[in-house]
Protein backbone atom coordinates (compact mmCIF):
# COMPACT_ATOMS: atom_id res chain seq x y z
CA UNK A 1 0.00 0.00 0.00
CA UNK A 2 1.40 3.38 -0.98
CA UNK A 3 2.33 5.76 1.79
CA UNK A 4 0.75 8.88 0.36
CA UNK A 5 -2.23 11.13 0.93
CA UNK A 6 -3.50 14.13 -0.96
CA UNK A 7 -3.33 17.67 0.40
CA UNK A 8 -5.31 20.20 -1.62
CA UNK A 9 -4.99 17.80 -4.54
CA UNK A 10 -1.21 17.37 -4.23
CA UNK A 11 0.22 13.93 -3.45
CA UNK A 12 2.15 13.98 -0.17
CA UNK A 13 4.37 11.04 0.83
CA UNK A 14 4.68 10.14 4.51
CA UNK A 15 6.47 7.68 6.74
CA UNK A 16 4.74 5.59 9.39
CA UNK A 17 4.01 7.66 12.49
CA UNK A 18 4.28 11.05 10.83
CA UNK A 19 1.51 13.56 11.45
CA UNK A 20 -0.15 15.42 8.58
CA UNK A 21 1.75 18.64 9.31
CA UNK A 22 5.08 16.79 9.54
CA UNK A 23 4.55 15.14 6.17
CA UNK A 24 3.31 18.37 4.60
CA UNK A 25 6.28 20.30 5.97
CA UNK A 26 8.71 17.66 4.64
CA UNK A 27 7.06 18.00 1.23
CA UNK A 28 7.44 21.80 1.37
CA UNK A 29 3.74 22.52 1.85
CA UNK A 30 2.89 25.13 4.47
CA UNK A 31 0.03 24.63 6.92
CA UNK A 32 -0.51 27.65 9.22
CA UNK A 33 0.35 26.91 12.86
CA UNK A 34 1.41 28.64 16.07
CA UNK A 35 1.75 26.10 18.91
CA UNK A 36 3.33 23.42 16.72
CA UNK A 37 7.13 23.20 16.55
CA UNK A 38 8.92 20.36 14.74
CA UNK A 39 11.32 19.79 17.64
CA UNK A 40 8.65 19.31 20.32
CA UNK A 41 5.75 17.00 21.03
CA UNK A 42 2.56 18.47 19.58
CA UNK A 43 0.38 20.48 21.95
CA UNK A 44 -2.67 20.76 19.69
CA UNK A 45 -4.03 23.85 21.40
CA UNK A 46 -4.00 26.75 18.95
CA UNK A 47 -6.02 24.93 16.27
CA UNK A 48 -4.52 27.11 13.54
CA UNK A 49 -3.32 23.98 11.76
CA UNK A 50 -6.87 22.62 11.49
CA UNK A 51 -7.48 20.85 8.20
CA UNK A 52 -10.35 18.86 6.79
CA UNK A 53 -9.59 15.14 6.57
CA UNK A 54 -12.09 13.17 4.53
CA UNK A 55 -14.61 15.91 5.22
CA UNK A 56 -14.04 16.22 8.99
CA UNK A 57 -12.00 18.88 10.75
CA UNK A 58 -8.98 17.92 12.84
CA UNK A 59 -5.67 19.38 14.02
CA UNK A 60 -2.98 18.41 11.52
CA UNK A 61 -0.27 18.50 14.22
CA UNK A 62 -1.84 15.63 16.15
CA UNK A 63 -3.52 13.64 13.36
CA UNK A 64 -1.35 10.82 12.03
CA UNK A 65 -1.11 10.62 8.26
CA UNK A 66 -2.77 7.59 6.70
CA UNK A 67 -2.73 6.25 3.18
CA UNK A 68 -5.41 7.61 0.92
CA UNK A 69 -6.50 10.48 3.17
CA UNK A 70 -8.03 13.42 1.35
CA UNK A 71 -6.87 16.54 3.19
CA UNK A 72 -8.02 20.10 2.53
CA UNK A 73 -6.08 23.03 3.97
CA UNK A 74 -5.89 26.22 1.89
CA UNK A 75 -9.63 26.57 1.32
CA UNK A 76 -11.60 29.75 1.93
CA UNK A 77 -13.74 27.94 4.52
CA UNK A 78 -10.81 26.73 6.62
CA UNK A 79 -8.81 29.93 6.26
CA UNK A 80 -11.85 31.94 7.40
CA UNK A 81 -11.92 29.85 10.58
CA UNK A 82 -8.16 30.23 11.03
CA UNK A 83 -8.58 34.00 10.56
CA UNK A 84 -11.26 34.11 13.27
CA UNK A 85 -8.97 32.19 15.66
CA UNK A 86 -6.11 34.58 14.90
CA UNK A 87 -8.37 37.59 15.45
CA UNK A 88 -9.33 36.19 18.86
CA UNK A 89 -5.64 35.83 19.76
CA UNK A 90 -5.05 39.44 18.78
CA UNK A 91 -7.89 40.86 20.90
CA UNK A 92 -7.09 38.70 23.93
CA UNK A 93 -3.61 40.21 24.22
CA UNK A 94 -2.01 43.60 23.72
CA UNK A 95 -0.61 43.16 20.24
CA UNK A 96 0.48 46.68 19.39
CA UNK A 97 2.82 45.74 16.56
CA UNK A 98 4.49 49.16 16.04
CA UNK A 99 5.81 49.14 19.61
CA UNK A 100 6.73 45.45 19.82
CA UNK A 101 10.35 44.45 19.31
CA UNK A 102 9.25 41.15 17.80
CA UNK A 103 7.45 42.91 14.96
CA UNK A 104 8.63 41.70 11.56
CA UNK A 105 9.88 38.46 13.13
CA UNK A 106 6.59 37.57 14.83
CA UNK A 107 4.89 34.34 13.82
CA UNK A 108 1.47 35.53 14.97
CA UNK A 109 1.77 38.68 12.88
CA UNK A 110 3.11 36.79 9.85
CA UNK A 111 0.32 34.21 10.13
CA UNK A 112 -2.24 37.02 10.21
CA UNK A 113 -0.68 38.44 7.04
CA UNK A 114 -0.86 35.01 5.42
CA UNK A 115 -4.55 34.77 6.32
CA UNK A 116 -5.29 38.27 5.03
CA UNK A 117 -6.39 39.54 8.46
CA UNK A 118 -7.28 43.19 7.86
CA UNK A 119 -8.70 43.85 11.34
CA UNK A 120 -9.13 42.21 14.76
CA UNK A 121 -12.93 42.20 14.22
CA UNK A 122 -13.78 41.44 17.88
CA UNK A 123 -13.80 43.78 20.88
CA UNK A 124 -10.41 44.15 22.53
CA UNK A 125 -9.74 42.82 26.02
CA UNK A 126 -6.83 45.21 26.66
CA UNK A 127 -5.47 42.95 29.43
CA UNK A 128 -3.33 44.33 32.22
CA UNK A 129 -0.77 41.67 33.12
CA UNK A 130 2.41 42.56 35.00
CA UNK A 131 5.61 42.72 32.98
CA UNK A 132 8.57 40.83 34.48
CA UNK A 133 11.78 42.81 33.99
CA UNK A 134 13.58 41.17 36.92
CA UNK A 135 16.01 39.09 34.86
CA UNK A 136 19.23 40.83 33.80
CA UNK A 137 19.08 39.53 30.22
CA UNK A 138 15.45 38.85 29.43
CA UNK A 139 12.16 40.76 29.61
CA UNK A 140 8.81 38.98 29.86
CA UNK A 141 5.69 40.79 28.60
CA UNK A 142 2.82 38.47 29.51
CA UNK A 143 0.34 40.76 27.73
CA UNK A 144 1.37 39.22 24.43
CA UNK A 145 1.17 35.55 25.45
CA UNK A 146 -0.94 33.34 23.17
CA UNK A 147 -0.56 30.26 25.45
CA UNK A 148 1.18 28.17 22.79
CA UNK A 149 3.29 26.55 25.56
CA UNK A 150 6.41 26.41 23.38
CA UNK A 151 8.51 27.94 26.19
CA UNK A 152 6.99 25.46 28.64
CA UNK A 153 7.90 22.49 26.45
CA UNK A 154 11.37 23.84 25.54
CA UNK A 155 12.26 24.50 29.17
CA UNK A 156 10.94 21.14 30.35
CA UNK A 157 12.01 18.86 27.48
CA UNK A 158 15.21 20.48 26.20
CA UNK A 159 16.61 22.67 28.97
CA UNK A 160 15.49 20.35 31.78
CA UNK A 161 14.59 23.34 33.93
CA UNK A 162 10.79 23.68 34.07
CA UNK A 163 11.00 27.46 34.24
CA UNK A 164 7.58 28.10 32.69
CA UNK A 165 4.10 26.69 33.16
CA UNK A 166 0.50 27.38 32.20
CA UNK A 167 -1.78 27.99 35.15
CA UNK A 168 -5.50 28.61 35.56
CA UNK A 169 -8.44 27.41 33.49
CA UNK A 170 -10.32 28.64 30.43
CA UNK A 171 -10.18 32.38 29.85
CA UNK A 172 -8.07 32.74 33.01
CA UNK A 173 -5.27 30.50 31.74
CA UNK A 174 -1.97 32.36 31.93
CA UNK A 175 1.76 31.82 31.75
CA UNK A 176 3.63 31.63 35.06
CA UNK A 177 7.27 31.45 36.09
CA UNK A 178 8.21 28.57 38.34
CA UNK A 179 9.79 30.39 41.29
CA UNK A 180 8.50 31.12 44.76
CA UNK A 181 8.51 34.84 43.94
CA UNK A 182 7.10 34.24 40.47
CA UNK A 183 9.99 36.28 39.10
CA UNK A 184 12.26 35.12 36.27
CA UNK A 185 15.32 36.42 38.11
CA UNK A 186 14.73 33.80 40.79
CA UNK A 187 15.06 30.90 38.34
CA UNK A 188 18.14 29.46 36.62
CA UNK A 189 16.86 30.69 33.23
CA UNK A 190 19.54 31.99 30.84
CA UNK A 191 19.56 33.51 27.39
CA UNK A 192 21.26 30.36 26.09
CA UNK A 193 18.20 28.27 26.98
CA UNK A 194 16.10 26.84 24.16
CA UNK A 195 13.08 28.36 25.89
CA UNK A 196 14.53 31.81 25.30
CA UNK A 197 14.49 31.25 21.53
CA UNK A 198 11.11 29.69 20.77
CA UNK A 199 8.51 32.34 21.63
CA UNK A 200 6.52 32.94 18.42
CA UNK A 201 5.29 36.33 19.69
CA UNK A 202 6.86 39.11 21.75
CA UNK A 203 6.67 37.67 25.28
CA UNK A 204 10.28 36.54 25.79
CA UNK A 205 12.54 39.35 24.63
CA UNK A 206 16.28 39.78 24.94
CA UNK A 207 17.09 43.02 26.71
CA UNK A 208 19.14 45.71 24.96
CA UNK A 209 18.45 44.17 21.53
CA UNK A 210 15.38 46.19 20.59
CA UNK A 211 14.64 46.92 16.94
CA UNK A 212 18.09 45.68 15.89
CA UNK A 213 17.02 44.87 12.32
CA UNK A 214 15.57 47.74 10.25
CA UNK A 215 12.06 47.56 8.81
CA UNK A 216 12.27 45.97 5.40
CA UNK A 217 15.03 43.54 6.36
CA UNK A 218 13.23 41.55 9.06
CA UNK A 219 12.39 37.88 8.57
CA UNK A 220 8.81 38.21 7.33
CA UNK A 221 9.50 41.47 5.48
CA UNK A 222 11.64 39.48 3.09
CA UNK A 223 9.32 36.52 2.54
CA UNK A 224 5.85 35.54 3.74
CA UNK A 225 5.64 32.83 6.37
CA UNK A 226 4.40 30.29 3.83
CA UNK A 227 7.80 30.49 2.10
CA UNK A 228 9.76 29.70 5.26
CA UNK A 229 7.92 26.38 5.65
CA UNK A 230 11.08 24.44 4.90
CA UNK A 231 12.34 25.50 8.30
CA UNK A 232 9.34 23.74 9.77
CA UNK A 233 8.43 26.77 11.85
Amino acid at each position, binding site marked *: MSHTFTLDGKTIPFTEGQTIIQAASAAGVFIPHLCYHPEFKAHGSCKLCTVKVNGRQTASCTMRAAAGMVVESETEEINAERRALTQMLFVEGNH*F*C*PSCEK*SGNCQLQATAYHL*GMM*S*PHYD*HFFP*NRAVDASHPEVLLDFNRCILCSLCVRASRDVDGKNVFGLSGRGIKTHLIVNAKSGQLADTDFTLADKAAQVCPVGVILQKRQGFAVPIGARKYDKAPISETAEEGR
Partner: protein
Amino acid sequence: MTATKKLKVATTSLAGCFGCHMSLLDIDERLFALLEHIEFDRSPLTDIKTCSPDCDIGIIEGGLCNAENVHVLREFRKNCKILIAMGACAINGGLPAQRNHLPLTTILEEVYHTSPGLTNGMIPNDPELPLPLNQVHPIHEVVKIDYFIPGCPPSADAIWKVLTDLLAGKEPTLGHGLMHYD
Protein backbone atom coordinates in the same frame (compact mmCIF):
# COMPACT_ATOMS: atom_id res chain seq x y z
CA MET B 1 -16.38 56.50 -21.89
CA THR B 2 -18.97 58.76 -20.36
CA ALA B 3 -17.98 61.14 -17.61
CA THR B 4 -19.07 59.83 -14.23
CA LYS B 5 -19.84 61.82 -11.14
CA LYS B 6 -16.87 62.19 -8.83
CA LEU B 7 -17.03 60.27 -5.57
CA LYS B 8 -17.13 62.39 -2.42
CA VAL B 9 -14.43 61.39 0.05
CA ALA B 10 -14.35 62.64 3.64
CA THR B 11 -11.40 62.06 5.97
CA THR B 12 -10.68 62.78 9.61
CA SER B 13 -8.11 62.13 12.31
CA LEU B 14 -9.48 61.08 15.71
CA ALA B 15 -7.03 59.87 18.39
CA GLY B 16 -4.18 59.57 15.92
CA CYS B 17 -0.98 61.43 15.07
CA PHE B 18 -1.89 62.44 11.48
CA GLY B 19 0.77 60.03 10.23
CA CYS B 20 -1.87 58.21 8.16
CA HIS B 21 -2.86 61.48 6.51
CA MET B 22 0.84 62.08 5.80
CA SER B 23 0.87 58.67 4.12
CA LEU B 24 -2.21 59.69 2.12
CA LEU B 25 -0.24 62.73 0.89
CA ASP B 26 2.67 60.39 0.13
CA ILE B 27 0.57 59.10 -2.76
CA ASP B 28 2.31 62.10 -4.39
CA GLU B 29 1.53 62.87 -8.02
CA ARG B 30 -0.93 59.98 -8.19
CA LEU B 31 -3.20 62.26 -6.16
CA PHE B 32 -3.87 64.09 -9.44
CA ALA B 33 -5.04 60.84 -11.04
CA LEU B 34 -7.16 60.22 -7.93
CA LEU B 35 -8.68 63.70 -8.12
CA GLU B 36 -10.10 62.88 -11.55
CA HIS B 37 -12.33 60.38 -9.78
CA ILE B 38 -12.87 61.84 -6.32
CA GLU B 39 -13.42 65.15 -4.58
CA PHE B 40 -12.62 65.76 -0.94
CA ASP B 41 -15.50 66.68 1.35
CA ARG B 42 -14.94 67.13 5.10
CA SER B 43 -11.22 66.65 5.63
CA PRO B 44 -8.19 68.32 7.22
CA LEU B 45 -7.11 68.84 3.60
CA THR B 46 -10.15 71.04 2.85
CA ASP B 47 -10.92 72.31 6.35
CA ILE B 48 -14.64 71.63 5.78
CA LYS B 49 -16.00 71.02 9.29
CA THR B 50 -18.94 68.67 8.74
CA CYS B 51 -19.70 65.83 6.35
CA SER B 52 -22.09 66.33 3.45
CA PRO B 53 -24.98 63.91 3.78
CA ASP B 54 -24.08 62.18 0.51
CA CYS B 55 -20.44 61.20 1.00
CA ASP B 56 -19.39 58.03 -0.78
CA ILE B 57 -16.27 57.14 1.18
CA GLY B 58 -15.22 58.12 4.71
CA ILE B 59 -11.64 57.48 5.81
CA ILE B 60 -10.98 57.49 9.55
CA GLU B 61 -7.56 57.74 11.11
CA GLY B 62 -7.15 57.26 14.87
CA GLY B 63 -9.11 55.59 17.62
CA LEU B 64 -11.62 56.87 20.14
CA CYS B 65 -10.18 58.61 23.20
CA ASN B 66 -12.88 61.18 23.97
CA ALA B 67 -16.55 62.00 23.48
CA GLU B 68 -15.91 64.20 20.44
CA ASN B 69 -14.14 61.32 18.66
CA VAL B 70 -17.28 59.20 19.11
CA HIS B 71 -19.48 62.06 17.86
CA VAL B 72 -17.35 62.57 14.72
CA LEU B 73 -17.21 58.84 14.05
CA ARG B 74 -21.01 58.58 14.24
CA GLU B 75 -21.33 61.58 11.91
CA PHE B 76 -19.08 59.81 9.39
CA ARG B 77 -21.04 56.57 9.64
CA LYS B 78 -24.30 58.42 9.13
CA ASN B 79 -23.11 60.33 6.08
CA CYS B 80 -20.72 57.95 4.29
CA LYS B 81 -21.78 54.93 2.27
CA ILE B 82 -18.40 53.22 2.80
CA LEU B 83 -16.32 53.69 5.94
CA ILE B 84 -12.62 52.81 5.98
CA ALA B 85 -10.50 52.45 9.13
CA MET B 86 -6.99 53.63 8.25
CA GLY B 87 -4.01 52.73 10.40
CA ALA B 88 -3.25 50.94 13.66
CA CYS B 89 -4.97 53.45 15.98
CA ALA B 90 -8.30 53.18 14.17
CA ILE B 91 -7.98 49.39 14.00
CA ASN B 92 -6.73 48.45 17.48
CA GLY B 93 -6.34 51.70 19.40
CA GLY B 94 -2.63 51.84 18.59
CA LEU B 95 -0.24 53.94 20.64
CA PRO B 96 -2.97 55.92 22.48
CA ALA B 97 -4.53 52.63 23.68
CA GLN B 98 -1.36 51.80 25.54
CA ARG B 99 -2.71 53.99 28.32
CA ASN B 100 -5.58 51.53 28.77
CA HIS B 101 -4.00 49.65 31.67
CA LEU B 102 -3.69 52.88 33.68
CA PRO B 103 -6.66 54.51 35.46
CA LEU B 104 -7.61 57.80 33.77
CA THR B 105 -7.37 59.73 37.05
CA THR B 106 -3.79 58.51 37.55
CA ILE B 107 -2.86 59.71 34.06
CA LEU B 108 -4.45 63.14 34.53
CA GLU B 109 -2.77 63.50 37.94
CA GLU B 110 0.60 62.57 36.48
CA VAL B 111 0.30 64.84 33.46
CA TYR B 112 -1.14 67.94 35.16
CA HIS B 113 -0.12 67.68 38.82
CA THR B 114 2.89 65.58 39.65
CA SER B 115 5.13 65.45 36.59
CA PRO B 116 8.34 67.50 36.86
CA GLY B 117 8.26 71.11 35.64
CA LEU B 118 4.63 71.83 36.50
CA THR B 119 3.72 74.26 39.23
CA ASN B 120 0.16 74.88 40.35
CA GLY B 121 -1.05 72.65 37.54
CA MET B 122 -4.75 71.98 37.27
CA ILE B 123 -6.66 69.36 35.34
CA PRO B 124 -8.35 71.20 32.43
CA ASN B 125 -12.10 71.40 33.01
CA ASP B 126 -13.36 73.86 30.40
CA PRO B 127 -16.84 72.77 29.31
CA GLU B 128 -15.72 73.04 25.66
CA LEU B 129 -13.18 70.29 26.14
CA PRO B 130 -14.52 66.86 25.19
CA LEU B 131 -14.60 64.40 28.06
CA PRO B 132 -11.92 61.71 27.83
CA LEU B 133 -13.02 58.07 27.71
CA ASN B 134 -11.79 55.69 30.39
CA GLN B 135 -10.08 53.63 27.71
CA VAL B 136 -9.08 54.21 24.09
CA HIS B 137 -11.07 52.03 21.70
CA PRO B 138 -10.75 51.02 18.06
CA ILE B 139 -13.53 52.41 15.90
CA HIS B 140 -15.06 49.08 14.88
CA GLU B 141 -16.20 48.66 18.49
CA VAL B 142 -18.65 51.56 18.02
CA VAL B 143 -19.79 51.60 14.39
CA LYS B 144 -19.68 49.16 11.49
CA ILE B 145 -16.53 49.53 9.42
CA ASP B 146 -16.52 48.34 5.84
CA TYR B 147 -12.80 48.16 5.06
CA PHE B 148 -9.52 48.32 6.97
CA ILE B 149 -6.06 49.48 5.89
CA PRO B 150 -3.61 48.25 8.55
CA GLY B 151 -0.24 49.83 9.25
CA CYS B 152 1.40 52.47 11.41
CA PRO B 153 1.06 54.19 9.11
CA PRO B 154 -0.09 52.20 6.09
CA SER B 155 2.18 52.91 3.13
CA ALA B 156 1.00 55.28 0.43
CA ASP B 157 0.98 52.27 -1.90
CA ALA B 158 -1.37 50.38 0.43
CA ILE B 159 -3.78 53.33 0.60
CA TRP B 160 -3.55 53.77 -3.17
CA LYS B 161 -4.26 50.07 -3.71
CA VAL B 162 -7.37 50.08 -1.52
CA LEU B 163 -8.75 53.29 -3.03
CA THR B 164 -8.10 52.25 -6.63
CA ASP B 165 -9.55 48.79 -6.00
CA LEU B 166 -12.70 50.44 -4.64
CA LEU B 167 -12.86 52.88 -7.57
CA ALA B 168 -12.57 49.92 -9.92
CA GLY B 169 -15.47 48.24 -8.15
CA LYS B 170 -13.26 45.48 -6.75
CA GLU B 171 -12.98 44.08 -3.24
CA PRO B 172 -9.78 45.70 -1.89
CA THR B 173 -6.87 43.34 -1.16
CA LEU B 174 -3.33 43.86 0.11
CA GLY B 175 -0.70 41.26 -0.71
CA HIS B 176 2.67 40.58 0.89
CA GLY B 177 4.66 43.74 1.39
CA LEU B 178 1.62 46.00 1.40
CA MET B 179 0.00 44.47 4.46
CA HIS B 180 1.88 45.60 7.53
CA TYR B 181 0.70 46.14 11.08
CA ASP B 182 3.69 48.33 11.95
